């Protein structure tokens, strides 16, 4: 028991004794955790960002001039039945005049003396789909309905957004793996270097009859402390960064996107840094002791 307590206390003391190496190890661990954390948050929020963008997709359907409001409503009901359509809202001729005035500042009735605007409908698409969203088949189906004069939609923009999302989803796991691997290697090598700097200590301990476990234990405890300190610094900074991004998006852009953080992420980050530090310490000490 005395031995175990001694080894644990040595782990803590080593952090203090070797302040510079501790600082280097904790700093590189923190940087790696910070970026891995942000990457994880980006990955987690990609879908919600896409859903937000999809909520902005809209198809405008203009009905024939002679069509009655009731017929327009029944065509709108048919549109709603099309796969991929979330909502369809009919805009009558009077509403169209009001919208025109809002958008262009002119009263079309006063200018022309009559209302040339047709009854129309605004169609929104379903957003919760993992598949690439293609609006063209929906548009074609709407066009084929009797009473529909013209259909307008942001075809090019939708295609661009959907393709970008598809690309991100395709390469994201690979990018994340590369990034995590780089972070792991950086942490691992920093831990290794900090231990190599104390080669003399290891050799002296060997000479006085210390077992491999006795030599490794304080380094492993030290690695755990370093890992914990790094996650203790990285976690609030990730929180501050994400809150800052949310604040900027809400106050300086028209995007109504709120990035979310799963609390378990912090547990994962702590575990990640702890495991890498411990494995790095263990392997470095073993390497020197060979």
């Amino acid at each position: 028991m005395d031995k175990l307590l001694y080894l644990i206390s040595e782990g803590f003391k080593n952090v203090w004794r070797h302040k510079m190496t501790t600082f280097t190890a904790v700093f590189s661990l923190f940087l790696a955790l910070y970026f891995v954390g942000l990457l994880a948050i980006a990955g987690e929020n990609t879908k919600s960002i896409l859903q937000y963008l999809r909520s902005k997709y809209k198809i405008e359907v203009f009905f024939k001039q002679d069509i009655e409001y009731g017929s327009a409503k029944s065509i709108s009901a048919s549109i709603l039945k099309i796969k991929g359509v979330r909502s369809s809202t009919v805009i009558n001729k009077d509403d169209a005049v009001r919208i025109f005035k809002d958008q262009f500042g002119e009263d079309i009735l006063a200018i022309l003396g009559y209302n040339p605007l047709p009854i129309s409908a605004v169609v929104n698409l379903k957003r919760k789909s993992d598949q690439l969203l293609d609006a063209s088949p929906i548009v074609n189906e709407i066009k084929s309905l009797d009473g529909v004069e013209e259909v307008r939609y942001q075809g090019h923009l939708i295609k661009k957004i959907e393709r970008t999302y598809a690309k991100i989803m395709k390469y994201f796991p690979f990018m994340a793996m590369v990034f995590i691997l780089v972070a792991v290697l950086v942490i691992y090598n920093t831990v290794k270097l900090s231990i190599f700097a104390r080669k003399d200590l290891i050799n002296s301990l060997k000479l006085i009859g210390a077992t491999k476990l006795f030599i490794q234990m304080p380094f492993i405890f030290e690695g755990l402390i370093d890992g914990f300190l790094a996650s203790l610094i990285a976690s609030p900074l990730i929180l501050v960064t994400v809150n800052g991004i949310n604040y900027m998006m809400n106050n300086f852009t028209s995007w109504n996107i709120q990035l979310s953080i799963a609390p378990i992420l912090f547990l994962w980050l702590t575990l990640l840094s702890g495991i890498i530090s411990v494995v790095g310490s263990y392997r470095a000490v073993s390497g020197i002791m060979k």
Partner: protein
Amino acid sequence: MIEFQNVSYTYNKGNGVTNLNFSIEDGDFVFLIGSTGSGKTTLMRLIYFDLWCDTGKIQVGDHNSELIRKKHVPHIRRNIGMVFQDYHLLNDRNVFHNVALPLHVMGYNANEIPYRVEEALELVGFEGKRGHYPDELSGGEKQRVTLARAIVKEPDIILADEPTGNLDPVAAFELVQLLETINNNGTTILMASHNYNLIKGRGRRILELKDGAIRGS
């Protein structure tokens, strides 16, 4: 007892020791002399199993080089005190903690450690400065601390590899006297040195190494 039977060891780049045959009885004080590169350190490393002989057999106490495994080495070393020319003290801890280290390794009770450390430091004549760090000590003081660290675990054998190499003549003389005092308590001592003037006329057995072989005893 330390016994070498036809022991040879060659480094990858050559040199080493060749066909060593000698024995040191329990409680003996033996000097090992020879010029630099004659194989003194190699012989010492073979005794504390830092090197494993290519041929022959080494017996250190109850341990036979043909039978022991690497995992046994730490336990064998706990019975061997070592003193080196370059001290091998840990600069990041003070005198007290340097001397206490072997006791922690051996799992001594925390209450017993301060008492044993004090005793060892007293024996080597190191008064005060227990809280000092190695960097703050003179060469002679450092070597006394190293010796205290070697004897604190009450080993059967002390190996001193050129312990006076970095000391002035007075400090070197005092260190040999200290080793003799320790030897009077029954500890076997093997001290390597290339300073013949320091060891001559002490009535101790001298092993002379030349080019890795024993030339005289």
